[in-house]
């Protein structure tokens, strides 16, 4: 996937766009995480603002609704002093028949410096990145099942924060891997950072074909897959997948793959529990675990702001 790397990383090794964690070097990922360290402290101050992107216009263009993710990008941009414009395109232009690229060209004509894009189709961010003017940066905030790189990076930040070193970790990703852009972004980043034992756990109907070629081990039994893990990452199960051809019911999913205290007891005693949010309590995760001492789900959100600030500042100062 050299092409992807060339699209998002320039010949000088600098980040031009952030489209996927696949192909990012370990050095570049560490650089982003190190940079995020500094922004965590910004967010702890009374005045939570630095002037790094003053005068820059960042367009949050969401072709698929997501208040949560859009808000985290908005906060990150505002803490960098950028001007933020939010567009919920799913209910405006495209319903009038405007194409994706026309929408982008129109916004570009308003002198956007950076686009944060979410779209229901895999590859939408790549398409946009290939067509924007030089100097305009694109951040993929989730494209179909493909990638959600800032989520993947904030998860790396979280793991590093609690576990320090990736080189001896066992990490399990549990649930609907098939439809999960988050899982893909985590897998690429974890492999690049040298995690030696990476597992995915779920029923066969929610496991993509040939996923082991991404460097993961596949487990279908939760108890076995989670054994002695240092990190347990639960994926969100979309409502529309809960009852149908791929899964009989949310209740049965919870019985087999929901994270309960019992199941978690098979992981290492100091294992951390992560979830990209929003959680379905009682479907992927039991409340006692979600709110328990091993859960780092809320710190993930806090770190997410810092990681997005780091990415935006790197792209905005290019």
């Amino acid at each position: 996937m050299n092409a992807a790397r060339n699209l998002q990383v320039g010949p000088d090794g600098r980040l031009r766009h952030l489209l996927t964690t696949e192909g990012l070097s370990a050095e570049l990922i560490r650089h982003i995480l190190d940079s995020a360290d500094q922004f965590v402290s910004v967010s702890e101050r009374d005045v939570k603002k630095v002037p790094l992107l003053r005068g820059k216009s960042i367009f949050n263009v969401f072709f698929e609704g997501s208040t949560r993710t859009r808000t985290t990008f908005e906060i990150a941009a505002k803490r960098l002093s950028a001007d933020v414009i939010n567009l919920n395109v799913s209910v405006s232009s495209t319903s009038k028949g405007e194409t994706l690229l026309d929408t982008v060209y129109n916004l570009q004509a308003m002198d956007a410096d950076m686009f944060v894009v979410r779209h229901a189709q895999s590859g939408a961010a790549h398409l946009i990145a290939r067509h924007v003017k030089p100097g305009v940066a694109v951040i993929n905030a989730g494209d179909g099942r493909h990638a959600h790189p800032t989520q993947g990076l904030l998860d790396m930040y979280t793991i590093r924060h609690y576990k320090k070193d990736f080189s001896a970790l066992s990490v399990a990703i549990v649930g609907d891997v098939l439809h999960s852009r988050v899982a893909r972004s985590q897998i690429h980043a974890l492999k690049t950072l040298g995690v030696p034992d990476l597992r995915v756990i779920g029923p066969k109907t929610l496991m993509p074909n040939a996923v082991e070629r991404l460097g993961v081990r596949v487990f279908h039994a939760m108890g076995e897959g989670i054994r002695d893990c240092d990190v347990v990452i639960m994926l969100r199960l979309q409502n529309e997948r809960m009852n149908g051809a791929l899964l009989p019911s949310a209740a049965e999913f919870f019985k087999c793959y929901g994270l309960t205290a019992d199941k978690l007891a098979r992981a290492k005693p100091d294992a951390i529990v992560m979830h990209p949010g929003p959680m379905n309590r009682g479907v992927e995760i039991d409340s006692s675990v979600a709110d328990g001492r091993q859960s780092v789900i809320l710190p993930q959100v806090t770190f997410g702001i810092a990681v997005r600030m780091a990415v935006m500042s790197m792209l905005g100062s290019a």
Partner: protein
Amino acid sequence: MKLEIRGARVVDPASGRDAAESIFIAEGAIAAIGKAPQGFRADETIEAAGLVACPGLVDLSARLREPGFEYKATLESEMRAAVAGGVTTLACPPDTDPPLDEPGLVEMLTRRATGLECGKVHPLGALTVGLQGERLAEMAELADAGCVGFFQGNAALPDAAMLLHALSYAATFGFTVWLRPEDAHLARGGVAHDGEAATRLGLAAIPVIAETVALRTILEIAAATEARVHLARLSSAAGVALVAEAKSRGARVSCDVGVHHLHLCDRDLADFDAQCNLRPPLRDPSDRDALRRALAAGTIDAVCSDHTPVDDDAKQVPFAEAEAGASALELLLPLTLKWGREMRMDLKDTLGTVTSRPAAILGVGAGTLAPGAPADVCLFDERAPWIVRPEALASQGKNTPFQGLEVTGRVVRTIVAGRTVHRA
């Protein structure tokens, strides 16, 4: 008008001829090869030493986009592209708008194509009215209007019962039914092969079993009805194996492969190249290699361009929303030559896959240089390299995944019924 093509390497797969000779053409037909007929005086002599002269190429699938999709391509633009690629006979699928399900539409298309004085167009009629899969099209009427077979295109038949009726009815008259083997339910929503690339890219998949399940059903029903079936666009090693086994049992089936599938695989989708959005999908390298071998071995009868001009707007969208297909009439010859060289094939055997072998499937008098046959000739420079530049293609469709590729083999002149219709 008498024409002599002097000193070319004459390669005629149908007869096995491969020698430097002259071709003598009179009254639009091949008069003789080698020695001039008595009293032959050429009105024009083409000095062709160093060039290859073979029968005009026969393409089993080229979408001409008329009627209905003139913004993608026109009959005129695509027939120019055909002869620019050395293609003098082609079958066009019925998936126009409206589909070719009425004799009047077919007659109009062939009449207009004839008027262009390029190559010959043999339409495939719609198997069902409107390609809707509900009612059989008037096959006998359509055959009288010039249809050489009946095809459902990329549209699905609703169930095996409809397939049974269609094959049974076609068998009544001895018509050939063309089917693209793909189970619509297993393929639904998919845009890429169910392998590593689709998993990496997060694209919905079309599994190999969509092809094999459909093939088993088609082969069973074809055997039961004694219908003649042509399987269009195989894509997988498992599919090839099923067809090989059926043929060994004496099944009356033929099959083809699209030329892209001989050279590309699912890895080429990275990253989200909509030009690689094709139907069937590009599969694993092992599938591609099986297709290449099966074409060489004759299990696959012919290679076709599967030419599908698509406008830029329909490709400049996220991968899954892009219209499938690639423009390939002008690439059929060089890409087939490339495959033949890489497989260490004889030039004669290589050219058989785009001349005599597809002509036999269509059952039309083309793809041969036998005396008396129509003088459809492709003259090409086997060693001339060129770079695929979309803007330089004659086709209105500039959509090709081979942009920038250096290929070898350039058409110098195309002759249809003794008339030069294209000159480089």
